[in-house]
């Protein structure tokens, strides 16, 4: 059974291989989609009614938040610390100004108040009270972790099936085995020709996420895309594509962005240091493999 829906400005496709009854399969798939809905409602920076955007209106005051927001934000802040701010979830306002400010379903634009200089250090999370305090007006962008988190929650719903694939616009978790009883074959897209693949890999109970500069460009300035270095406010172009295989989609999602920001050499180092697998592609189509992919 296969169902496709729109969430988080992308196409989410869930496919299940099973002998279980249709009703049970439908229920589980709906619950898997519910995970996407919940994470989107919590983490969207495009909707003023999201938990994230409401919490950001209360500067200097702790706001209690649900795990749908707390957990991906906590993860994002850990990555920010690890990379000394090269990865920084306070990039949201810059993204807004670069034209990534339009809600994909309603077309409504968002324009948020902000302080001139912000970093992740202005976000305080209290694990005991499950509260978020922001110290300056800022916009949090969880684009590099929220989708992965939703995929991991959805995978948990589908874990009892013989096989399943959750594909959220190219970020994928492949569970169990395919119809043939083999690991799932996943293609890695060619950065310049969208119907070609550069590689096919086999996955079972693993995620793969790809960060690339080729899908989401700024409308007026083609050198800007949706991955932005918070220090330079520009989009790095040392790589065109960075794919990471990891046990969790949130890890694959975040570290594909980190590797993209780090570029060829340092990206490879980080992938190997963390026992991940990755495939990085330069603008000249040189392929860098890491971790035995």
């Amino acid at each position, binding site marked *: 059974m296969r169902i*496709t*829906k*729109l969430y988080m*400005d*992308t196409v989410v496709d869930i496919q299940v291989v099973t002998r279980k009854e249709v009703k049970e399969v*439908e229920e589980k798939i*709906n*619950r898997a989609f*519910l*995970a996407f*809905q*919940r994470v989107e409602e919590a983490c969207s920076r495009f909707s003023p009614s999201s938990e994230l955007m409401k919490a950001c209106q209360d500067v200097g005051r702790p706001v209690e938040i*649900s*795990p749908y927001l707390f*957990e*991906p934000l*906590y*993860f994002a802040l850990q990555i920010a610390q690890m990379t000394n701010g090269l990865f920084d979830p306070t990039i949201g306002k810059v993204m807004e100004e670069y034209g990534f400010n339009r809600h*994909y379903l*309603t077309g409504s634009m968002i324009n948020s108040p902000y302080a001139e200089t912000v970093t992740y250090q202005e976000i305080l999370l209290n694990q005991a009270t499950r509260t978020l305090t922001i110290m300056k007006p800022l916009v949090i962008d969880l684009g590099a972790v929220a*989708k992965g*988190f939703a995929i*991991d*929650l959805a995978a948990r719903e589908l874990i009892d099936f013989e096989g399943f*694939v959750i*594909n*959220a*616009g*190219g*970020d*994928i978790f*492949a569970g169990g085995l*395919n119809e*043939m009883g083999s690991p*799932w074959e*996943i*293609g*890695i*897209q*060619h950065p310049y*020709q*969208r*119907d*070609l*693949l*550069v590689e*096919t890999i086999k996955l079972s109970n693993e995620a*793969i996420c*790809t960060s690339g*500069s080729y*899908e*989401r460009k700024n409308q007026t300035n083609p050198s800007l895309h949706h991955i932005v270095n918070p220090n330079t406010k520009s989009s790095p172009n040392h790589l065109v594509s960075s794919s990471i295989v990891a*046990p*969790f989609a949130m*890890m694959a999602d975040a*570290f594909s962005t980190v590797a993209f920001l780090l570029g060829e050499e340092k990206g490879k180092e980080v992938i*190997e*240091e*963390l026992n*991940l697998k990755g495939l990085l592609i330069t603008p000249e189509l040189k392929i860098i493999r890491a971790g035995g992919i």
Partner: protein
Amino acid sequence: MKKTDKKWIILCSTAVAAVYSAGYLTTENQVSIEQPIHQVAKNIQTNNKAVNDGSVSNAQKNKLYKDGTFTGTGMNRRGSIDVMVTIQNDKITNVEISDFAMHYSESDIVGLPDEVLKNQGARVINVSGATYSTEAFEDAVQDALNQAFNTVG
């Protein structure tokens, strides 16, 4: 080799567990509390066709859109897309893609290296790439919204 990856695996599994242990992700019994979402999910399961039956209750008169599930079609240069958009209290609660007939022109695949052709096997069904946007789907969603527009209100 350093095993610092463990930290990240633990963070991810803790994150997933946090949603479950807190009882946030609804169980079968809890689902009824989540009324709007539950009802919408139910509509989709039982009504595969659009349910624009034209009946508008008093409560709906001041709304911009009728409640229900509406189909819309969008086209781009690669083909056509059908979506089913569910609206509840003027809020889009669900967008399901009911038909996806995108084509790639033959000129796009002329001159493929052999290696790539080999990889294009029919068993390759999922492709990891930079997150593609819903741009191509916007017309289809808009078409469905036009149908849902509440002319009575």
